[in-house]
């Protein structure tokens, strides 16, 4: 099971801040996971489309085509707003 974390308004759209998600065999990259999650949850699809979402795999910034596996912690980050 991959551990998936949602931050900021992505958590609102996902209906939770984290979930364990069993990656389908054809979900090989972040991009595949975005598609899979978007298909499951329309609100998430909307935020993925509208926003400059960034990705973190096992605490390292990753690009959309980064490979992922069922042991990874994968985080979705909307634009940050500190300070």
């Amino acid at each position, binding site marked *: 099971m991959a551990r998936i*974390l949602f*931050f*900021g*308004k992505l*958590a*609102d759209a996902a209906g939770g801040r984290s979930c364990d998600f069993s990656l389908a065999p054809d979900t090989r990259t972040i991009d595949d996971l975005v598609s899979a999650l978007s298909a499951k949850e329309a609100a998430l699809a909307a935020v993925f489309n509208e926003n400059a979402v960034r990705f*973190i795999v096992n*605490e390292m910034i990753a690009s959309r085509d980064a490979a992922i596996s069922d042991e990874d912690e994968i*985080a979705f*980050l*909307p*634009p*940050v*707003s*500190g*300070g």
Partner: protein
Amino acid sequence: MIRVCADSFDPGAELSAFEKNASGAGAVVSFTGKVRDAAGSDGVKALCLEHYPGVTERSIQEIENKARERWKIDETLIIHRVGELAPGDPIVMVCVASAHRREAFEAADFLMDYLKTEAMFWKKEIRDSGEVWIEPRNADYKDAARWKDSGRHDEEE
């Protein structure tokens, strides 16, 4: 030093401790950002700040590293609140100590611009009319962009 904390902090007490620690420096600049009670016309009752433990601290460390590459800095302190904050509460504090005032001012200014646009926090305002996720203003992105093309400040002395 970098501190992401769920409890309130006292900027005056932090500045005292920081100055004691940076006793050799000729110049100390501090910045405190606080929850305002009206962003626009809509009353803000509270602010919720989320972070990604570990990753957030590392994102701040990278910002501090950039500042240290650019300016000669003796000490820095970066404190950032998470959790629920009330109007008037301090959200963020940055202190910079250096030999001369120019470095201290510029580095503190730089740290704040980058904390606003690159540190991994997510901020939600609880307003009378509902909850709103905040993203950096255009002014914040413009402020951060100021540091991209200018090199290190020329120093005399």
